[in-house]
């Protein structure tokens, strides 16, 4: 038990410290690295309470994909920002909007926890019986694909919508771009690509394209 407590405090201390670093560091790239550290230690905390599937998914989705894109964007921005920085000493004007967002999140957390308090037998419903013989992954699957299948499907559709929305917003058709068409390249034949021309003196040959 002692070792368990030790590891818990170790990981939670790193999580809290790293998430503080995320908002205090000047350099945005460093902030993102601390965000990644927060994700990783949160994953470790998940594994410590026996939710190894969630912990691994957190690592794969957030650290392996989301944070990579984050880092990508921030690195790109950083190059532009550094040149900007010398010109204008910008003061932070994001505090009011940040406060509003964090207030909304706080309210949401309160509502969730309040709901939990209100219906405290929720954790004991049939589908959520904790059985040490069944692995975490199987338990989650049993609940997700039976009791909550519709919500699960709706979540999937929302993600699909978000993806399509992002593509529609950023897609633009550029004119005059010559693309390689594999089908055209493969289906070329000698007959329609090579022709023998009689070149007339002093007038030349007109070639298409």
């Amino acid at each position, binding site marked *: 038990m002692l*070792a368990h407590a030790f590891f818990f405090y170790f990981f939670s201390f790193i999580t809290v410290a790293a998430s503080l670093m995320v908002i205090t560091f000047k350099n945005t*790239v460093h902030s993102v*690295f601390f965000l*990644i550290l927060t994700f990783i230690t949160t994953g470790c905390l998940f594994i410590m309470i026996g939710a*190894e*599937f969630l912990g*691994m*998914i957190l*690592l*794969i989705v957030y*650290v*392996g*994909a989301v944070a*990579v*894109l984050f*880092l*990508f964007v921030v*690195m790109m921005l950083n190059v532009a920002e550094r040149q900007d920085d010398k010109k204008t000493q910008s003061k932070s004007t994001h505090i009011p909007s940040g406060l509003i967002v964090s207030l909304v999140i706080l309210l949401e957390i309160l509502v969730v926890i309040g709901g939990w308090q209100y219906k405290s037998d929720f954790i004991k419903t049939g589908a959520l019986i904790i059985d040490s*013989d*069944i*692995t*975490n*992954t*199987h338990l989650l699957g*049993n609940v997700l694909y039976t009791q909550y299948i519709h919500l699960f499907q709706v979540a999937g559709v929302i993600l699909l919508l978000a993806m399509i929305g992002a593509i529609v917003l950023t897609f633009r058709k550029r004119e005059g771009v010559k693309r*390689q068409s594999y089908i055209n390249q493969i289906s070329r034949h000698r007959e329609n690509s090579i022709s023998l021309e009689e070149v007339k003196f002093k007038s030349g040959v007109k070639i298409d394209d």
Partner: protein
Amino acid sequence: MQYLNILLSEIYKIGFILIPILVSVALIVWLDRRVWGAVQKRRGPNVVGPFGLLQTAADALKYILKEIIIPASSNKIIFILAPVVTMTLALVAWAVIPFSDNFVIADINVGILYLFAVSSLGVYGIIMGGWASNSKYPFLGAIRSAAQMVSYEVSIGIIIINVLLCVGSLNLSDIVNAQKDLWFVVPLFPMFVIFFISALAETNRPPFDLPEAEAELVAGYQTEYSGMMYAMFWLGEYANILLMCSMGAILFLGGWLSPIDLFPFNIIPAPIWMILKILFLFFLFALVKAIVPRYRYDQLMRLGWKIFLPLSLAYVVLTASFLFYFDKLPVRGM
């Protein structure tokens, strides 16, 4: 006191796996160069030691003695951390690789997810190295590499789902034991091919070595690295390749199981079979390096997103419907 005992026995186990892996990484570099040479009708490294086996040791000695140069305008902490991250992540994944029924450091329930997570973290070493160098070529190489590795991870993930549908468990030992009668390479052969190609892209091997395409980007994210730090990138890359090979061996080639359960084959110990399968896959990796020209970047992206992703998704549907129709879905933990 009992914590200390647990700690010591774990360290012993880790050392027992880690040291052979580090040695085999050195030998695998030699094998790679020998195969490469043989394809091109050269001899390859054959001077240092018997058959040139100690060539990598000599190279490593050279790297240790060389000066480590850290560019003045680089971000020093991240610059130094990048090769460390690459090397650590390449070695940390071996904790879950089973070499026989009970020859594994950590036989965890979500072994395959752990492997997938660690291999998807591998991109950080490259991005960090590329960005921290604060120079154009490494940065371009890092960006290319990040996009490439993220894209091919997607198809690897879906291929893993194919295998998991047939197994019904995320545990690596269960995955191997489910192949007692039939290796998954037979029913899932198209997936094995796609996995192999995606593994090439994931480990930045030729023909997908665009992050370090020397003709365009000098050496990509490794341009500013020198001495031991470069060697760590290099060794981490080869450890990653070995890891991908063992992942392929476990998912498709039946891990430590012998091909047929008959007399001359089943007296060979299980870890030997595992090693032989890893070596076979690595031999294919080395052959591909020698005989295939490099892809163009847009072709690479097209292959990943427009061909591999739909194909592997379609195969998931096919596998699932086949298993469902013939009532062969594995039922476990119900």
